[in-house]
């Protein structure tokens, strides 16, 4: 048996329920459940988070505007039944990949076309599509055990330490 660091899962984090999920990074995990749990431990050490999504990196298709324009075909793309794809796009050169909506398509290539079309006149800098069925989402009912413990860790917050006050007092005590 070979030794690997497990496959990668991309992680999308939603800070508050009224904002879209944004790409946070990735974790290595053997399967979706461990990916969700690891995603929580890696990305939700500090508040705020209301929802976490993970998807195998291998299930995501997309690229930069340049790559998509060049028409690089997705690997293993089969035209099948029409399914839902989640779409993530980076529309600001300084921003991150953000969940912008869903499209219905029968293949990854078609999903990208639909997504670009749906984005309107402004071509996104980067676009990702992933079959919704392959995205694992944290359950709303599990939000408390997953996300609220991070609220209880004041010592992680640098505002909890009053270093400048202490140094100022020392300077005064030593007379200058």
């Amino acid at each position, binding site marked *: 048996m070979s030794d690997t660091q497990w496959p990668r899962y991309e992680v999308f984090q939603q800070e508050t329920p009224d904002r879209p999920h944004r790409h946070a990074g990735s974790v290595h995990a053997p399967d979706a459940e*461990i990916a969700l749990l690891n995603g929580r431990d890696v990305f939700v050490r500090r508040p705020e988070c209301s929802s976490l999504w993970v998807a195998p990196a291998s299930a995501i298709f997309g690229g930069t505007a340049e790559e998509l324009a060049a028409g690089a075909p997705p690997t293993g793309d089969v035209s099948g039944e029409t399914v839902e794809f989640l779409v993530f796009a980076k529309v600001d050169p300084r921003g991150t990949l953000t969940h912008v909506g869903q499209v219905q398509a029968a293949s990854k290539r078609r999903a990208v076309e639909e997504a670009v079309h749906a984005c309107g006149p402004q071509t996104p800098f980067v676009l990702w599509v992933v079959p919704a069925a392959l995205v694992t989402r944290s359950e709303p009912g599990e939000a408390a*055990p*997953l996300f609220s413990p991070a609220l209880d860790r004041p010592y992680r917050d640098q505002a909890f330490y009053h270093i400048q006050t202490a140094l100022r007092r020392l300077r005064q005590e030593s007379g200058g």
Partner: protein
Amino acid sequence: MKPGLRSPLAEALLALADDELILAHRDSEWTGHAPILEEDIAFANIALDELGHAALWYRLVADLREEDAERYPDRLVFHRPAGAFRNVRLVEHPKGDWAFTIVRQFLFDSAEQVRLKALAAHPQASLAQTAAKILTEERYHLRHLSAWVTRLAQGTPESKHRMQAALDHLWPLAGQLFQTLPGEAILVDAGAWPASPMLGIEWQAQVTDFLTGCGLTIPARTSPDESGRQIHSAHLEPLLAEMQSVARLEPQGEW
């Protein structure tokens, strides 16, 4: 709260606090040595949670004994001799291999959940609130540990073998978790504590179900070691010697 119950309640909570502290200490020994980076992060989180729980219980003990809530917990942790600790022997054992650590954590966290659910309904507000807060974190622990127990117990022949060996070693020790706690008898009589042996029956049924469902075998029942929490294994003294070494350099000092 009836005055006569404060002292036994403090004793019972001290036992819970000591369990969390010693287990957290063992868990923290994995930082930088876990099987994969994500587990360094995940297990450090578990250790942090357990240490936080210990701190919460020690604070309640301080309140009950009318001691300084800021200073008394550290005095309990860093300046008691081994003989004064009231943790179970299960948590003293060195961390072992990853299977040993996972099985121990699973047995402990599942036991904690059973007890905390009962305590979350306690009439004394600060106790109930503390239990409820800890319970939220424990639900996450159990989800994490259950996922790991399932996967290691059914992964490869080697992982299954290691998991069974760990369970064989730990199962007899786990029984001590539900022996009557220090101070418990008086509290139970007054209707102020959920009796441990009853909780133990519930716990044993739950974990037996889960572990056998994973393909593991529960070791045959041996005569349980009834020696109380004041009796410790040979592991506790060296653990405490290390844990208390710096604090004891300046026992009255600020650290």
